[in-house]
């Protein structure tokens, strides 16, 4: 009995102590000078944001997305927090969701003076967002499995029966693959885009599938890098990381040739980073300062020389030889793309989650 009493007393003391300590652990956060939501991979963006802090003396609270959640986490938060905004700047590593946010009325205009030399196609006419440092949607090709890479030069090669079961695309439900799928509707028209994506979707359950449907662009690059698959759609940053491992891979910028009837080439899709200020941002002046900093020529150059090898959208910004920009871009309106993304998501769900 004496022992039980002692145990009980110790237990009570421990519980009380822990309960008393808990509020200390739950201490509320200190207010930063700037809150930035960043979907550019943390490995790349965290050191840059630390630099901004050092340069300006501002205390930045950066919050990131994960690769798995793509931009769904941060975009959703901006939408949900709209009644009581806390995000000052959204640095998105793609464009469709940013345009969608503008379309839904969640962004505030800011005409950054630094962005004056950024080409008009990468700037919102109403100045609610600005694009910079882009990634291209390329085909990563394993040169050991495709000894003559010139055989692959078009998006339609994925559907060539010759390559059945050896090509790959990430499932177009999130991220840049969703953006890419939506862009195809604009570039090809509904009928041909449906034909292309429908063939992939319908064939995904066959064995072997018409085109393998991977979990992400990173996974696509990895499968090709490791020689499991011959080629697949991915982003230039994923290609750069795969290439850095020494794998026998090359990047093919697809659809550079005119069509059989002399039509202009479809081109390769460019997906720029975008930066924007959500409506009601609590630290507006600091937010503008950050936007100016991110949109600077210096930053585009930094991103081009970084491991993610982003393509500067300003033609005269220096870049390494490995960062190509001498290719035909897919001609689409990013504004239209972003406005359609919600509907396209539903269509992709219906096509790709069909059973």
């Amino acid at each position, binding site marked *: 009995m004496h022992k*039980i*009493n002692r*145990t*009980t007393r110790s*237990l*009570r003391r421990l*519980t009380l102590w*822990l*309960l008393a300590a*808990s509020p200390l*652990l*739950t*201490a*509320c*956060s200190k207010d930063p000078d700037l809150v930035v939501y960043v979907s550019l*991979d*943390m*490995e790349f963006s965290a050191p840059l944001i630390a630099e901004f802090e050092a340069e300006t003396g501002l205390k930045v*609270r950066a919050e990131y*997305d*994960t690769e*798995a*959640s793509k931009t*769904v*986490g941060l975009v*959703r*938060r*901006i*939408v*949900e927090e709209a009644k*009581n905004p*806390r995000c000052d700047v959204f640095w998105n590593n793609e464009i469709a*969701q940013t345009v969608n*946010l503008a379309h*839904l009325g969640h962004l505030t205009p800011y005409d950054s003076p630094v962005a004056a030399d950024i080409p008009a196609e990468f700037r919102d006419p109403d100045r609610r967002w600005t694009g910079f440092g882009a990634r291209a949607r390329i085909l990563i090709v394993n040169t050991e499995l495709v000894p003559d890479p010139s055989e692959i030069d078009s998006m339609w090669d994925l559907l060539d029966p010759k390559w059945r079961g050896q090509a*790959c695309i990430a*499932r177009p439900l999130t991220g840049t693959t969703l953006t890419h799928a939506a862009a195809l509707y604009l570039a090809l028209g509904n009928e041909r885009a449906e034909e292309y994506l429908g063939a992939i979707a319908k064939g*995904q359950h*066959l*064995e072997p599938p018409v085109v*393998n*449907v*991977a979990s*992400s662009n990173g*996974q696509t690059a*990895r499968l090709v890098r490791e020689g*499991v698959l011959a080629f697949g759609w991915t982003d230039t940053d994923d290609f750069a*990381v*795969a290439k*850095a*491992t*020494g794998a026998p891979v090359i990047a093919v910028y697809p659809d550079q040739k005119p069509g059989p009837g002399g039509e202009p080439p479809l081109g390769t899709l460019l997906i720029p980073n975008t930066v924007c200020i959500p409506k009601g941002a609590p630290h507006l002046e600091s937010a503008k300062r950050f936007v100016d900093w991110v949109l600077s020529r210096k930053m585009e150059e930094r991103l081009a020389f970084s491991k993610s090898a982003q393509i500067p959208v300003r033609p005269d910004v220096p870049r390494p030889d490995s960062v190509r920009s001498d290719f035909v871009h897919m001609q689409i309106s990013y504004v239209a793309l972003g406005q359609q993304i*919600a509907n396209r*998501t*539903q269509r*992709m*769900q219906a096509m*790709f*989650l*069909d059973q």
Partner: protein
Amino acid sequence: MPTPRPALGVALAVLVLFGILPLAMMSTRLGVDPSALGLLGEPRILDLLGRTLLLGLGVVGLCLLLGVPFGYWIARTNVPGAGLWGALVWVPLCLPPLIMGMSWIEVWPHVRGAPMTIWILGLSYFPLVAAFVAKAARRVDRRQIDAAGTVGGWSAQWRMEWSLIAPAAFFGATLAFVFAINDFAVPDYVSSVGSKFNVYADEVFATWQAGQKDSRAIATALPLIAMTLGALWIALKLRRGGSLQSVGSGFQAPARMDLGPWRWLVLGGLLLILTASVFLPVGRLFYEAGLPVPIQAQTAVGQPPAAMIRPPWTLGHTWEAFQTALERCRDNLRASILLAFAAATVALPVAFLLAHAAARSRRGKWILFGSLLPLAAPAILFGIGQIVVWNHPLTQSFYTGDGLVIGMLLGRYLAFPVMALTSAIENLSPRLEEAAALVGTSPMQRMGRIVAPAVLPALAGSWTLVFVFAMRELDAAILVPAANKTVMFRLYNAVHFYRQDYVAALALVTLFVILIPGLLWTLFARRKMEVLT
């Protein structure tokens, strides 16, 4: 014996604020557009639900196949090292299933789709079956075993034992079902090559993209919530069945069966299962931690660059990888440990009070149901609900601070300690509390002096479960501001970059941290930890 009312009120308030209110707020959005429910009748949705159900049943089958013999062997036979294998069997539950999937894809690259998904999720969750079977097998009365054996030999003995162990096995399998049907990362990952295997959880996640109707997203989540709640309800019914119910005062523990030379074969079986579920994934992580990144071979000036070469595995590099992981992610590890520690610690008194009320009051079922609800909701829905409840000017500091992370973890995982402690308190005779009441002790004194010491192993098990799941949490955490700094967040970000050495080392360090509470209890406590039953 009633639960102390003011304290119970506080505990209920915590459950409502962090568990139920976020879901209630989200459900009001469905009310705006009830027509959204119409989409649930679409053939595509029904197909997805059907295959998700089949996936869950497949995982249940595999968990039973692996877990029943495993649990029985370690509990009832003289197989060498039974105690050690019984402790190791918890490791797969601490590993994120995706990491298990990455390992197995390397071993069986040609097995993909549904079979591989079932294999991975089965390996990840069979410990739930094994542990409960082991516990149930230890609680079969020796006299019953002897009687059955005398009457009908070995087969009659097994039939009798199985009838008592089966509820425990199915209880564990039902929990495995819950985890399996809510997972979308593993099916997506393992069917990246070959025939694609889509599940319903994919549909739920995809509908939360901005611009889509909230009512549609919430309606989409309802079937998964219903399936999960249904399974948890079955689990609650099973947890008190067979030999999991309280043992009588004259209980005689069963003797371990002497297998003779067969014990080596049984040992081989145990090691095979552990190799598949523990040694292989952990070994692969260890191997990857020691593989340096490729380097560029040096060439003469003017020559084209040489191919990259990958230096061989070394123990020295393994050590470096661990150092890098700790250097880069020390703060993330610290944050995760503190948050999980705080969530588990706050969960304990809250769950203790709720469980006492659940076990002793007529409305106990509703308390259990209320605590299960947050666990049944898709993580993304639960996370958005937290934003809706807490993002207001008055609660801004709390919203952006650690408090909300702890509250979110608490709300989501309170179901586990409530289930565990309810079961433990139900096993405790109310007469003890009545006797204490007669000598004038207050309700709080009875809780502290009579009930808590008697359910100490269940309290320890509950704390550990919340700690483990809090450390592993990612999906709901992506929506809560301060959860951005957790180690899981960092780990899943780093996986993307092929820095397999430091990522693997970080995964191992995280696994070790998750296992520490269980290890400490095993090493220093004299009583077995009780988890969930």
